[in-house]
């Protein structure tokens, strides 16, 4: 009379089986829209964000293709014109210096491309470090909870009160100035905010009922983190990572402006802006203008993209 739970599920009759298979074939045609697809839809409807994305892509493509257009390399010095940069070193198509010359007679077009590449790389790698360290730290702190969480978060509280820019400067002064040191310096400090955000998200996720449902289904904690927590953290992480990139570029530029960041012959937008700013008294305004244009384009478009992503992915919008 009553089916015992012990009976095997494979006793589903063959005829019924066939009917279900038929329905399943039909189901293949009905695709659900995942949250990511939804978000992509919202993002593409946001005109400002799309325009910013196009701008950023244009900047990136420019830095990749630019070297093939450039007439001069970034290291060559135009000995013919270096004596009178203010007079002859301006941007010009005839001389092949599309953006003019820098203060020692190098081609600013090539230098700007080099600087933009450096800044973008620093920004992306810096943000990546912050995201990896911050996400791991925050997720562990939030998921484990208890005194571990307490200890980990008090540590962040204390570290966040340290004026980190000074620490970076200290590091840059005390140790050899290199890319590695720069990344270490930026990475060491920038993950703090990220870890707080991720922890908060993890905590609220942890108490969601679908996590409890997974526990009740006997799913192991590692699988819970992998299958349920991390995918749901991705939205927040992506948004903040996007917003971190311009911040990292700003930090690097700041340090380079002080002359403590990227060292010659390498350069970054901050370093170029610094040089350009110190030479405007000689009337070489292009030395400030070109790096500044690329700096602003990059930063502003990243801001808009980050904002667009937040609107598209923010749980509140759902």
């Amino acid at each position, binding site marked *: 009379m009553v089916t015992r739970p012990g009976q095997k599920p494979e006793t589903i009759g063959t005829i019924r089986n066939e009917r279900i298979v038929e329905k399943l074939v039909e189901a293949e045609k009905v695709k659900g829209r995942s949250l990511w697809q939804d978000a992509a839809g919202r993002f593409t409807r946001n005109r400002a964000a799309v325009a910013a994305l196009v701008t950023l892509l244009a900047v990136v493509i420019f830095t990749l293709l630019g070297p093939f257009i450039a007439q001069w390399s970034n290291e060559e010095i135009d000995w013919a014109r270096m004596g009178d940069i203010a007079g002859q070193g301006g941007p010009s198509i005839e001389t092949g210096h599309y953006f003019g010359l820098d203060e020692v007679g190098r081609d600013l077009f090539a230098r700007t491309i080099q600087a933009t590449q450096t800044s973008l790389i620093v920004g992306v790698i810096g943000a990546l470090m912050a995201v990896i360290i911050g996400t791991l730290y925050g997720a562990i702190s939030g998921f484990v909870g208890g005194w571990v969480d307490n200890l980990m978060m008090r540590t962040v*509280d204390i570290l966040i009160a*340290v004026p980190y820019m000074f620490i970076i*400067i200290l590091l840059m002064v005390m140790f050899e100035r290199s890319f590695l040191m720069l990344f270490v310096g930026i990475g060491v400090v920038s993950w703090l905010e990220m870890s707080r955000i991720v922890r908060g998200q993890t905590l609220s996720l942890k108490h969601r009922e679908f996590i409890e449902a997974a526990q009740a289904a006997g799913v192991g904690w590692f699988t819970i983190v992998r299958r349920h927590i991390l995918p749901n953290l991705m939205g927040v992480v992506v948004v903040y990572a996007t917003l971190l990139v311009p911040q990292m570029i700003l930090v690097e*530029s700041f340090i380079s402006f002080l002359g403590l960041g990227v060292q010659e012959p390498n350069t970054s937008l901050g370093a170029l802006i610094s040089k350009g700013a110190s030479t*405007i008294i000689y009337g070489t305004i292009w030395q400030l203008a070109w790096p*500044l244009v690329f700096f602003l384009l990059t930063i502003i478009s990243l801001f808009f993209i980050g904002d667009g992503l937040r609107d598209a992915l923010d749980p509140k919008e759902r």
Partner: protein
Amino acid sequence: MLRYILRRLLIAIPTLLILIIICFLLMYAAPGGPFTSERPLPPQVLANIEAKYGLNDPLPVQMWNYVVGIVTRFDFGPSFIYKDRDVNDIIAQGFPVTLTYGTISFVIATLVGVSLGVLAAIRHNTLLDYIAVGATFSAQALPNFVMAPILVIIFTWQLGWLPGGGWNGGQWQYVVMPVIALSTSYMASIARITRSSMLETLHSNFIRTAKAKGLSTRTIIRRHAMKPAMMPVVSYLGPAFVAMITGSVVIDLYFSTGGIGQSFVNSALNRDYAVMLGVTILYGTLTIIFNLLADVAYAWLDPKIRY
């Protein structure tokens, strides 16, 4: 409330100590001291100097002396480079300048940023809102080291209205550009945070209740929406203040104000660790104090904080 402040203070003290220790250890670990210059000193002279500055004592003793000096006498020790001045002199000379325009910048950034943000939120989806959003976005990308040269080009080279640098005892012409350069991007950030938090507040249930009570928009904003909308802004003000005083290094350098940033960068380039350490700890202290103030302000805004 009093208990809350007291507890925050109790947390601030170890934070400060840890900050001092981290900085001290960094300095200790740094390769090469201030006296390992290009022209090596005779070993005997070096030993004498190091003994004079206490650099021969074991690490814990050095650290202890340093911490005790700061805590009991507010004494950051002597400069390694300038034989006749100690760190306190250097700070006393430059800090008031930085503090003056730093405070002005902070107040202006907060007042203008908040007003702009509130206005944009009230006029949501109007032309004014769009202009404000666009302007704040662009302005956020104009950090001090970008603003400073732009301002100089416009106001000094083109218009000739303002002096391109110097301090001159804080005469207003000398203060204007440092303040604008320092505050613009933070003003923009504050405006953006205010706008989004005000928008969120205006959509909450208790605002609906206030509207149903027949209150005017002005009353609703002032009495009901302002406090909750300010909560994220207040949390941002702590970090913003820190970022601004850090940014003052650029301002001091670019406008030659004679502020403490100049001493800091000089000491950094000269490996005068004592001055660097002193300035870092000073700014760290300011940071902690300011975060404490922000926390207290936050507790005042949120009656639920009573722990």
